[in-house]
């Protein structure tokens, strides 16, 4: 269906992804057991991953536990700030490009 394709193409994929990730991390209890790990490397069996602990780190930061956050991963707070900023940028971009404004000087002839 061409219509579906067009709608899917216009969805702000990256924005939805970050928002979903932040909401998820804010909602869960990072100390909980049995939480799914999203690390691709871990799923493949590779133990060394420079990004490991980021999820827990960001989650702790979102709960206000900054010291624990830094313990899980040193860049957790930095990641949160950067991702939040990205969400803002993408949102403003979204608002700027919905509807095309009429060109300046346009008059009804």
């Amino acid at each position, binding site marked *: 269906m061409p219509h579906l394709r067009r709608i899917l193409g216009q969805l702000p994929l990256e924005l939805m992804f970050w928002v979903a990730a932040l909401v998820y991390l804010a909602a869960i209890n990072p100390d909980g057991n049995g939480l799914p790990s999203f690390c691709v490397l871990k799923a493949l069996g590779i133990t060394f991953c420079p990004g490991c602990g980021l999820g827990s780190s960001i989650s702790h930061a979102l709960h206000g536990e900054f010291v624990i956050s830094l313990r899980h991963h040193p860049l957790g707070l930095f990641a949160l700030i950067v991702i939040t900023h990205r969400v803002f940028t993408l949102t403003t*971009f979204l608002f700027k490009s919905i509807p095309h404004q009429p060109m300046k000087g346009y008059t009804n002839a």
Partner: protein
Amino acid sequence: MPNIMQLLPEIDGEEMMYLQNMLKDYSDQQAQQFAMMYRTRRRDPQTILLVTLVGFLGIAGIQRFMTDQIGMGILYFFTAGLCFIGTIVDLINHKKIAIEYNQTQAQQIAMMVKSST
């Protein structure tokens, strides 16, 4: 009305439509000036795609550096692209990343062209 297909033949799709709309009222000289500057600053979506793929080899975030997102780039670089998840997202979204950067550049160039003529 300047013809984008003649000025910037390598551009198509959404990017072309956006530029066509933007340069509607430009004189030929302004349009050529714009095209010259735009061409040097523009990021090709294919380039973005390829450097994103490099992320899977261990050096993640180049696509973010190339689109002026230094903070994100540093984050990707030190976390293997957010455990590859960021790299995968960027892979799917590479076209948008390129187009958004190009549009921001286009707006800046437009201001410069308009103010100098």
